């Protein structure tokens, strides 16, 4: 799935954010016109600019243009893009997807062994904040769910809360799902600040990888991270914030997995959702694969005990990024088709599988690294 394209920009100084349309009647001050043919009749009204596969670089337009864009195939009417002065056109929001996410920052105070989106140590926060402030008012009001991820979004500091306030004001019906390591909430005032927003549709997805600090801190490669995360969860619960606990399954987290399940039940029973997630073969994972890889087939016993225990005690449990054929049937009811559409694939042998439609399949990047026990169900 293509989410970025590039052309040659003119008259673009600061990043521009707008919807795209191919229909000149739909143009308004927040809309880019996509022009894939000859120069259209320039409408006599306010609009954001023109995106084209032609070459307008020589034309003396007063409005922003991006020329020589190789493809518009991936852009649907109403999608929202950011256009930079470097000619980059990033898709920020896709109207036909349920998996839209705002990237809050690429900075992170952890460095997880299996990070799927390794952090970058540069301050991108003001730039991204600015883009999101422009983006959020343009998002359709019927957007069902919107993610916020990073990096670590809370590193935005006050801007994080301002982003949430903007979301609450503009998209009161949208479920907001934030992926954070929760460490910042160990500071009471940060949790309190979040609670002030009183955001019922906000859910924080926070990873806990072990019940023992040393193992968790090693996995996230940050000293004191476990204690900060647990205190953060505790502070968030104090303010009745909605919490999802996320556990990535790999060689470092499996040995204490059943103990972790009991730790969660006893110390974090307020969690609204606990998710167990298969390892993604992307980001840091290939580099650390020796430390991380265990065939999912080889951890079904631990996973089963952890899932059945938590579900048995009335907690809401899900398994993500897993294939039905690898798991025993009594765990199927917990499996969700969680992988975002644009990164979801199946293996060639899956084509003949009778349960294909019920199966979450694999991440595109896991086609290279997957359980040796995937085999199609046949009638």
């Amino acid at each position, binding site marked *: 799935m293509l989410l970025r394209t590039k052309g040659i920009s003119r008259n673009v100084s600061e990043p521009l954010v707008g919807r795209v349309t191919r229909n000149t009647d739909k143009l308004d001050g927040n809309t880019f016109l996509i022009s894939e043919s000859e120069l259209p009749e320039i409408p006599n009204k306010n609009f954001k600019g023109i995106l084209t596969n032609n070459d307008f670089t020589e034309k003396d337009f007063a409005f922003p243009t991006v020329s020589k864009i190789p493809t518009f195939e991936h852009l649907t009417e109403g999608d929202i893009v950011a256009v930079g002065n470097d000619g980059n056109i990033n898709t920020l929001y896709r109207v036909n997807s349920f998996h839209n996410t705002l990237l809050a920052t690429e900075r992170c105070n952890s460095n997880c062994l299996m990070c799927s989106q390794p*952090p970058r140590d540069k301050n991108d926060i003001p730039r991204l904040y600015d883009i999101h402030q422009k983006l959020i008012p343009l998002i359709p009001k019927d957007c069902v769910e919107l993610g916020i991820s990073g990096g670590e979004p809370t590193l935005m*500091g006050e*801007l994080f809360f301002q982003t949430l306030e903007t979301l609450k004001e503009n998209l009161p019906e949208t479920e907001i799902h934030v992926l954070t390591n929760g460490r*910042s909430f160990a500071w009471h005032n940060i949790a309190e600040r979040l609670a002030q927003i009183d955001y019922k549709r906000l859910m924080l997805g926070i990873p806990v990888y072990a019940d*023992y*600090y*040393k193992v968790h801190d090693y996995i996230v490669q940050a000293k004191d991270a476990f204690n900060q995360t647990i205190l953060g969860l*505790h502070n968030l619960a104090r303010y009745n914030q909605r919490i999802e606990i996320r556990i990535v399954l790999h060689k470092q987290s499996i040995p204490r997995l059943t103990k972790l399940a009991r*730790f969660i039940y006893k110390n974090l029973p307020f969690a609204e959702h606990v998710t167990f997630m298969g390892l993604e073969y992307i980001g840091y994972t290939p580099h650390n694969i020796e430390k991380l890889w265990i065939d999912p087939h080889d951890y079904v016993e631990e996973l089963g005990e952890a899932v059945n225990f938590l579900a048995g*005690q009335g907690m809401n449990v899900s398994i993500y990024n897993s294939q039905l054929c690898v798991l025993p049937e009594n765990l199927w009811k917990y499996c969700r088709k969680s992988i975002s559409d644009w990164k979801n694939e199946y293996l060639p042998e899956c084509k003949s599988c009778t349960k294909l439609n019920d199966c979450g399949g694999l991440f595109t990047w896991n086609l290279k690294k997957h359980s040796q026990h995937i085999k199609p169900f046949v009638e």
Partner: protein
Amino acid sequence: MIETRPDRTTRKFKEIDFYDKQETNQYFLLPFRFHRLNNQKEVLVNEVGDHLVVPDGTTHAIVTKTLSKENNPDIYGDLIANFFISEEVIPPLIDVFATRYRTKKSFLEGFTALHLFVVSLRCEHTCHYCQVSRVTTDKGKFDMSREHINKGIDFMLKSPNPHVTMEFQGGEALLAFENIVYAVERTKELALLHNKTVTYVICTNLAVVTEEILEYCKANDILISTSLDGPNYIHNENRRRPGKNSYELTIQGLELSRQIVGRDRVSALMTTTTLSLEHPVEIVEEYYKQGFRNIFLRPISPYGFAVRNERKNKYETDKFLTFYKKALDRILEYNFNGEYFSEDYATIILKKILTPFPVGYVDLSSPTGSITNAIVFNYDGVVYASGESRMLAEMKDYTFKLGHLDENSYEEIFYGEKAQQIVESGINESLVGCSDCAFQTYCGADPIHNHATQGDMLGYRPTSSFCHKNMEIIRYLIELMDSDKRIKEIFESWVKPRS
């Protein structure tokens, strides 16, 4: 805005030992207690009731600081993760621990919930273990007067607890059904004004139950609690009445009650007698046969235990424990065969062992559940600290008479000197023999039982039947879970919240 640490100079991955926070091999003990489970294992229990079963000798190693993460990496991690030891003097997650403790004790927040109204002392049964009922038609003398019902209700609605239970007992409560109707109607009206939710329970042998009575129970959401001691040859022997048909009437009444008020609104209790002790399996099977999927093997029986005779008590307790284990075995067998069937006393204890939530069971609380959780308004207006107090009074021992509905105020009864003395004697955290017991958080204290059996409220643990019984049941439950993963899963299924 929190200033995050300056951007890293390197994101090179470090090995696990880099994340070890322990300095100079030091660790500190958090409060925990221990008990030898059997010859191979011991169990450690911390202040919030989390437990670990570890090899024999582990406590010694912990205390002498010879345990290390090098020679026992898993146990060391378990001890840190479960709040038994800490690498810092003040554990970094002490706030979480404090919340856990507060949660466990939060059954105290509401104060008295269970209000027992002895609406009549009259009964058509002459059960041989009952010392209080009267076979008579003299309503004036043995039924609770309307004035006393009114005052009892007023007291109940004064409880700080937003959820109270009004339980009608006897004698046979249904012989005074018009009193029950009167009490429920009055309470319904007043509860609205006081913003209270009230759960109504009628304890009845069901011998005189009618469709009309049950329709009233259904309309008013009243729970039915009956007595079933086992198969007919046990039940009819224990629970005598003219016609020797108590069992038959109970079963008939049970069916009718289930039809009208609903299966989940009808429960049964058994009382263990000398005869019962010989038939653990038959009793369990009788409950199963009658469609129950739980049974309460009540260790507290008014007969046989409440005597001041050490040797007899020890003997009776041993016999009860044998009975209990045999019955539990049969119950587990049902579960092994894929059927859900639970034992209530084990479930109460297991909730304390396995869940982080409060358990406010009157007979197993610290501070004691008498007064702080339950109170008895007797038919004659006398207020007692518990049902057993009422039995003692029948034997002319008025130690646990807290006052009278006509003479004393709510404050005098619930916060008076006597109440304070009883509750103060019922805090196992500070009782000799309990304060250092591994099972303290799973157990409770019962000053009334201590007084009845040992002559003083504080009691003496080495010969206490309460202690003997509970310690062995708790030990046995932990040992069972540790010995068989299937049993652990079964027990976990018993404690899960049922809607």
